[in-house]
């Protein structure tokens, strides 16, 4: 029996990227992001015998993660989160960047789960509209409209509006 790629190696190499994507999906909540990634990886682990042989197991894991969080949208992720902890920032992080990050997190929480998913796939992972549609299991038209709605909502956030319309120097 051929030895499939080690699951532990897979987790080690991919969980960082998945966590970052999950951070965006959950509106900047590391605890939820970790829950999401662990749940998704748990699903992958259950099917590891099959997934390990795939050309791109990481793409599959990503898809599982998105489906998981889209299925979980009943959970009140968009609800007010009582403790407004800022995520730990790396050393040398400018004040401006922290401010922008906080503004971004607030704005992301205003978005629906699907809109966050589109934003994450299109603009964080630079996937094409077609790829995004494939991963989310919806049409390209839906991707376009969700992305447009999300952009419009993000522009509503005062701190982001200047940046996104190019009126402030980044």
């Amino acid at each position, binding site marked *: 029996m051929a030895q499939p790629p080690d*699951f532990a190696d897979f987790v080690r190499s991919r969980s960082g990227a998945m966590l970052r994507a999950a951070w965006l999906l959950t509106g900047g909540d*590391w605890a939820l992001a*970790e*829950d999401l990634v662990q749940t998704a990886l*748990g699903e992958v682990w259950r099917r590891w015998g099959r997934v390990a042989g795939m050309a791109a197991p990481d793409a599959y894991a990503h898809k599982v993660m998105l489906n998981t969080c889209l299925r*979980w949208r009943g959970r009140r992720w968009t609800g007010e989160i009582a403790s407004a902890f800022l*995520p730990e920032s790396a050393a040398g992080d400018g004040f401006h960047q922290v401010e922008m990050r906080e503004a*971004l997190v607030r704005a992301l929480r205003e978005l629906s789960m699907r809109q966050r998913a589109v934003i994450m796939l299109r603009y964080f992972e630079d996937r094409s509209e077609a790829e995004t549609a494939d991963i989310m299991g919806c049409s390209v038209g839906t991707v376009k409209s969700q992305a447009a709605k999300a952009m419009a909502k993000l522009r509503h956030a005062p701190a982001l509006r200047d940046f996104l319309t190019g009126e402030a120097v980044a």
Partner: protein
Amino acid sequence: MNAGEQRLSQLLKSSVPDPPHALSADQVTTRPADRSAKSWAIPALAAAAVAVIGLTAGVAASHHAGAPSPGAGAGRPTATASASGGCPEQTVPAFSGLTQTQAVAAAEALGYHVEVLAVASQAVPGTVVGQSPSVGSRVPRGAALTLQVSAAGEAGQGTASPRGRNSASPAPASCPTAAASATARPANGAVPAVTSLHAALAGTLLRRAGFAVTVVDSPPSAALRYFPPGVVYRQTPAAGTVARPGTRVTVYVAPKP
């Protein structure tokens, strides 16, 4: 992509911070991430179903098997006697949490071709943290079984180390039978693995295997919050320990939150 989209893309990429902790595989396999009742009910039901199938098959096969096989909790080896020439399939039990020695002995007794893989993990060095095929899969007797064992000094050890990989047993040429020791001495039996089962089911399995059972309900604590409530998280003696019938097995049950 228009200018606004490009700026958003730039903002997203510069805003996402580094994750506070890295995830490792043993967190994935040992910690149920979604602690809502619904999400763990499914694996629990699956485990229960496997165990019930195991019990009925065990009853149907009468008591030919003699002493219970080691490590057979949820996955009591239900050797479905296939009419064809291939090796009979059996359900893979849970090995995680056992020491490497116990797990290898149990797995070999069940006829698996065992391979041990050292992995970086925060678990106690020398304990099994993962396995492939996974718990509950059905594979033929004699199939390869990989046990992931927590390596000592995990911190710097990035990859599965080759030295940890050893062929603990040669590949069997034909369907191996269950270890002779299990059948030769029907007086003593190996304690089945009942961790990750519900307390009631664990009790049933243990009594059926001829052991007395003490159930200890643990008080809530931070260390136990990741275990599904009502599920056995620890047992003594450990699974695979050969003990006289009637020996008292203590199972520790995770608290309700």
